[in-house]
């Protein structure tokens, strides 16, 4: 059985989710080829254990993101079951490849078993769907839902230089201002809500985050109320879906739309002064306290760990 993996990149290298894609593919016992758009990360991909072949795609069209031209070049190499990350670009590229190879796509799966039985969450996390597929098909995998493959592999790297016409022209890049780690990438996320009172109080979340290497997120109420809190930090139904090992919600009531983006976190800690806040319903560990009292204590206690 052939499995084609679309490498997910981050800057000049591979994003760690690529190892998780290989891990999931290996658990199915597939023969794995990794496609590296723009050639980014091809050497790193070749040493992931379980990879048979890496195709480094070098065409000019890969200099900026255009799912149309990228998928045109990638479709002929997309054999068997195709796997990509369920990041925004992974979903877009996956859907275009699916359409070009005439296959269906199932997005954002959190589980896969031999026989192509896949699990995913639907209705904003209010139901779980299990479905069965046959190859050819495309699936995108939720980040951190699968065990990553280890290193130690030595796959051959094949360079292919194909390009095609680009239909989306990038005119201007607008960088995020001093942005911290992205919430979708982090193992630990600490988020603040309207209960933080003022945007400047997010500095206290940043301080705790720095101690444990966490990303800082926010509720929609915080993003909507305060210009200083960008939408890129928003967790929830109309923000990002996160799947960290630890999610700490501070001054967040736990509205259903917020839960939609974080309830699959492995462990949830809630800090809220209202003992009846719905967030306590999903929290593994709830602390009924104000953040003014709890955050300095949290920073101190975490700082004591080594």
């Amino acid at each position, binding site marked *: 059985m052939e499995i084609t993996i679309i490498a997910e990149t981050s800057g000049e290298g591979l994003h760690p989710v690529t190892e998780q894609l290989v891990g999931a593919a290996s658990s199915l016992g597939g023969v794995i080829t990794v496609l590296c758009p723009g050639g980014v990360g091809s050497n790193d991909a070749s040493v992931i254990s379980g990879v048979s072949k890496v195709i480094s795609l070098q065409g000019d069209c890969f200099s900026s993101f255009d799912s149309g031209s990228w998928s045109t070049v990638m479709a002929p190499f997309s054999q068997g079951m195709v796997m990509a990350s369920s990041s925004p670009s992974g979903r877009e590229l996956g*859907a275009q490849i699916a359409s070009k190879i005439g296959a269906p796509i199932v997005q954002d799966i959190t589980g896969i078993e031999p026989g192509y039985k896949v699990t995913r*969450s639907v209705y904003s996390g209010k139901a779980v769907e299990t479905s069965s597929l046959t190859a050819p098909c495309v699936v995108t995998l939720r980040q951190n839902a699968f065990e990553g493959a280890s290193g130690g592999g030595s796959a051959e790297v094949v360079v292919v230089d194909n390009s095609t016409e680009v239909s989306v022209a*990038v005119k201007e890049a607008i960088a995020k201002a001093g942005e911290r780690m992205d919430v979708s990438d982090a193992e630990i996320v600490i988020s603040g809500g309207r209960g933080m009172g003022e945007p400047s109080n997010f500095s206290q979340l940043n301080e705790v985050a720095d101690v444990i290497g966490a990303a800082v997120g926010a509720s929609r109420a915080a993003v909507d109320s305060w210009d200083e809190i960008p939408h890129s930090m928003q967790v929830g139904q109309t923000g990002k879906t996160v799947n960290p090992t630890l999610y700490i919600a501070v001054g967040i009531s736990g509205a259903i739309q917020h839960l939609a983006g974080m309830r699959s976190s492995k462990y949830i800690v809630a800090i809220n002064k209202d003992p009846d806040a719905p967030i306590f319903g999903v929290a593994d560990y709830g*602390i009924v306290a104000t953040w003014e009292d709890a955050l300095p204590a949290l920073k101190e206690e975490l700082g004591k760990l080594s």
Partner: protein
Amino acid sequence: MKIAVLLKQVPDTTAKIAVSGDRVDQSSVAKWSTSPYDEYALEYALQLKEAGAGDLVAITCGPDRAAKMLTDAAAVGVDSMLHVVADTTEMDSKQIQSILVAAINHCGADVVLCGKQAADTNSGSTGPGIASLMGAACVGMVSEVAVEGDGFSALRASSMGNERVSVSRPCLFAFDKASTELRRPNVKGIMMAKRKVIETVSTDDLGINLGESQVNIDSHDSPPEKPPGQKFEGADSVHTVVLKLREEANVI
């Protein structure tokens, strides 16, 4: 030259979702709404229409109840509405895309706006899939679009932050949350909408051969209940919780 906006009717985000047997029980959904991102697509589609980019048609594929959403769209200014009456709940991505592409072609639209992801499927397959089938430029994660010469300029999220991109027709924009206000219908709009006729068609009318779904849904289940959490009073308990995170949960 026509603009199409794709609107999907989904359970309101506040609605409870019940599973009965092995499927989500659609009949128990208390409130249906337009999928949240589609509302941003609609707002920008109206702005493009007002800027002279073409007449605007709202398209949906869904059961009879979805018609209400089209009437609501007419009340804020869409020129025409197309309702493909079909039950999409068991369809795979290819089937739903083939219906919507046929609907878009039926209306003669070459600019399409849709949501980045529907609130029921949580997928994000439809927009890019349609763009591919139409041979249209695909711009995802869009939070702004405007007319620029014969084409369009859009703002989309990128790994670096945001990017401003240019495209020409045919093109598709899949919308993320935007920072614009959504318009609400006024009395005049509601009265006008009552006089607009929804074109209602079946998949047969559009000449679509749907084929078999290649994704078989085995079951829907309610999300696993989490064991009840532990709750502590006061900031003094932070010490205990941190200890438990290290020793019980093993996450720090």
